[in-house]
């Protein structure tokens, strides 16, 4: 008994579809060239010295005090941030799902706070922490009169990263808590457990794999983060910043940087694999399906007041940090002279501000549609099609999620500065805007793909089959049925890519040439020089742009909303009927 014949027929049918083959070939080439190849080059570089293949670069790097120190620092920071974010995320999620909040304003506040860090440039919180609590901080110096408060260092990074990453935990855990069947907790209550006992004996154990999952996700984010340690880290160097300094500092030690990058990559990769293939599955196993009915929300004042007060305090703190940014741009000299002026905006403008905005926006705008379309095509192929290289495409495009930007940046330098395999082929790519666009695409592809995959999984297979059956080839099925059905995911992919690209820094800062001025790089430069006013001016305009784009998306989504769409269609139908009768 053999299935050879059906396989032969399936292959024949498969190859009868040129669009499909074309899409797969292009994807495989793109993913290999711009994700696998640079990472592979890093590995090759790290193990091949002038005296053949060996691990001496690793040994040398390991003996560097700076590296060992950075390694320990990174792990310690990751652990603190992981625990902190999970705790804070759990608190917010619990209040959101379990506690009745009287005021809609409080709920709105939570929503804003959970949204803000996701859409803002990565280092805004660092910037405003320095403004509020730094040496000339508004709170520390002006209000409390502390002269030499040092916000730079581990505690600074930890606070900023927790506030940046906890919303991710909050959203993950909210989803899980909503899936817990309330009857389980009611049964425990019914048998005599108090609220706290219910939480520790039922809710928490059910949530445990999910907590582990959230912890690892934040841990990876913290380890990969470049901008915050750069800005507020002071002497506390992490792997990402050490690698950056290894390249840009006086030493220009590329093999050393490559070896460090490989170690950082291994670290995030292992964590990512545990998270993706173990914890995510485990989470899905313990919490499957939907809650059978609505949960009775907790009204107890003894629970409600302390928890919601805690959440409100955190929220207000975050909002305060964001409010500090535009004021940072408007005050004449932070810490000394709090008169409102427009000097910083004018200065920003004078110092090539326009070019920075033009470059950033243009490059991001180019990357945006390509990424959104690529990720939808990848998810379509992964979910709906069967073919040999499917596993490769899925793995590589998700793998990119685990690659820290700094590592990718070093990989591109090693892989493309002297052309492919140091042969000079494609050398022209290095230092161009194109390579920046490619980095933007690679950095946003995993998120887009993931959202596309989950959107597609919800579409009944037979809907596409019926289009196929009606006579549509796979290209036509994709454009006429699949894409319209996942347009929400597609549009949010557009926005995510744009926002992520225009706020990106970690990989970009290693690859950008003076030909291109990018907003984020400028902010970093000005902040390093201590010109916080101009940095804030840039950040303010950047935040306004990203929010504008998100508002625009909401508008577009509403326009495509089924009600509106139907009215438009009805009008069109009437017009067409009239035209037909005339003819």
């Amino acid at each position, binding site marked *: 008994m053999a299935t050879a014949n059906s396989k032969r027929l399936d292959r024949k049918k498969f190859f009868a579809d040129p669009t499909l083959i074309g899409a797969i070939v292009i994807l495989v080439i793109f993913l290999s060239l711009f994700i696998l190849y640079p990472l592979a080059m890093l590995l090759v570089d790290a193990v091949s010295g002038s005296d053949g293949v060996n691990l001496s670069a690793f040994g040398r790097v390991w003996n560097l005090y700076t590296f060992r120190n950075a390694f320990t620092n990174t792990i310690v920071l990751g652990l603190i941030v992981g625990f902190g974010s999970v705790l804070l995320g759990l608190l917010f999620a619990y209040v959101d799902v379990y506690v009745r909040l009287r005021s809609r304003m409080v709920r709105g506040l939570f929503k804003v706070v959970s949204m803000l860090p996701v859409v803002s440039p990565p280092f805004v919180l660092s910037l405003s922490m320095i403004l509020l609590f730094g040496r000339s901080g508004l709170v520390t110096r002006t209000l409390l009169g502390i002269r030499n408060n040092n916000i730079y260092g581990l505690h600074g990074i930890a606070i900023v990263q927790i506030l940046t990453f906890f919303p991710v935990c909050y959203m993950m855990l909210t989803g899980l808590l909503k899936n817990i069947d309330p009857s389980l907790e009611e049964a425990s209550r019914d048998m005599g457990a108090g609220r706290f006992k219910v939480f520790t004996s039922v809710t928490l154990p059910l949530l445990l794999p999910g907590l582990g999952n959230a912890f690892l996700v934040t841990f990876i984010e913290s380890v990969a983060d470049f901008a915050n340690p750069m800005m507020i880290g002071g002497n506390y160097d992490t792997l990402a910043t050490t690698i950056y300094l290894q390249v840009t500092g006086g030493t220009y030690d590329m093999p050393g940087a490559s070896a460090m990058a490989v170690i950082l990559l291994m670290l995030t990769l292992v964590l990512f694999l545990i998270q993706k293939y173990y914890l995510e599955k485990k989470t899905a196993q313990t919490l499957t399906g939907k809650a059978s009915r609505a949960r009775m929300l907790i009204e107890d004042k003894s629970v409600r007041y302390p928890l919601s007060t805690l959440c409100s305090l955190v929220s207000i703190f975050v909002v305060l940090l964001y409010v500090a940014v535009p004021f940072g741009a408007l005050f004449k000299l932070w810490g000394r002279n709090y008169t409102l002026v427009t000097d910083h905006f004018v200065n920003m403008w004078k110092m090539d501000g326009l070019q920075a905005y033009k470059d950033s926006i243009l490059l991001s705008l180019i990357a945006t549609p390509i990424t959104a379309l690529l990720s939808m095509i990848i998810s379509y192929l992964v979910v709906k099609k069967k073919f040999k290289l499917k596993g490769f495409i899925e793995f590589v495009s998700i793998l990119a999620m685990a690659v820290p930007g700094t590592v990718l940046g070093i990989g591109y330098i090693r892989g493309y500065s002297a052309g492919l395999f140091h042969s000079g082929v494609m050398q022209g790519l290095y230092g161009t805007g194109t390579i920046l666009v490619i980095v933007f695409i690679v950095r946003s592809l995993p998120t887009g793909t993931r959202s596309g995959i989950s959107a597609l999984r919800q579409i009944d297979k037979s809907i596409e089959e019926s289009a*196929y059956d009606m006579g549509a080839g796979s290209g036509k099925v994709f454009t006429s049925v699949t894409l319209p059905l996942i347009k929400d995911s597609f549009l949010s992919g557009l926005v995510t890519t744009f926002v992520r690209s225009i706020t990106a820094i970690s990989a970009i800062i290693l690859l950008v040439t003076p030909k291109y001025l990018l907003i984020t790089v400028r902010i970093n430069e000005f902040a390093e020089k201590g010109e916080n006013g101009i940095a804030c001016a840039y950040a303010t305009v950047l935040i306004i742009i990203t929010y504008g784009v998100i508002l625009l998306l909401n508008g577009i989504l509403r326009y495509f909303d089924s009600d509106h769409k139907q009215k438009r269609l009805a009008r069109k139908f009437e017009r067409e009927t009239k035209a037909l009768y005339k003819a």
Partner: protein
Amino acid sequence: MSQSVKAPKGVRLEHISKIYKDPKTHADFYAVKDCNLDIAPGSFITLLGPSGCGKTTTLRMIAGFESPDEGEIYLADQPINELTPNKRDTAMVFQSYALFPHMNVYDNVAYGLKLRGVPKNVIREKVMNILSLVKLDGMELRMTNQLSGGQQQRVALARALVVEPGVLLFDEPLSNLDAKLRVEMRTEIRRIQQKIGITAIYVTHDQSEAMSLSDQIILMKGGVIAQMGTPEEIYYHPNSEFVADFIGECNFLKGSVISCEDGIAAVNVNGHTVRVSASEGVKAGTEGTIVLRPEAICISDKGDLPCTVELSCFMGSYQNYHVRVGDTLVRIADNCPANKKVFSVGDTAYLSFDPICSHLL
């Protein structure tokens, strides 16, 4: 209004097999094994069977979604094994309807015609015609989620019909409807199929649907065709206990053949002789199973087979009995109980039946 411009096409399956891998044991097994079918143009045939019998796989092989491992499928005498679904002259009505949720009724139905590059005014005419055939006039602009289940079903049917396929395929199209609507829709499907004269292949696990719709029923079990024939043949002359039991309720009585003449056999059941219809060539002395439909049995004070009543239950149009004949439980549906003697639990009664209404396996 003539709907069918093209002539209906016949379908032939020659030695079709499909092999799957068991996801747990990784062993190969036949989902469909050596299936031979010759479906005449314009006929309505049903693939009937329990879940996992290979009926849907067979249908999906005809549509082109699955590829057979052995054999060849012919559409109007042309081999189609290597054609992709979009190149085959078939149209399928899916179990979940598979309507495009982002299109209104009109665009759903017009989809296949647009793909074929049909001029706009022709599309309009055809779509309007087909919508009135399935009684959906005036619904063109509704979105699919504003339709009831039955209406969605009609749209799915119209969408498949409008492209005038050589063969119409149905994959359990009525299983998501409630019982009453199901009966209504199957009458509709039969009416439309007769009117257009299209070849239809229909998959279902519901035997009453199969009987009311089909010219021919193909009953499948474990990937193999168990029996094929008209609904009457299959109902009255099943060739196995499985077929008899699957197509309607059935009792089985074991007995040994005493004699057989002119298609009527005398069979000894628990020491009592009953007469049943049998095929030629049944030899005296062999053991056999009598197939008895519940409604074919008469229960009274006199008869061939004594029995004890174990359950007696009034069902309105009939009295439902469970009686014990020897070791065997026999179910009886006694119609119009109002003017008959009703037996109670524990009573002894006698069973009799017309030889024509029974069948010896």
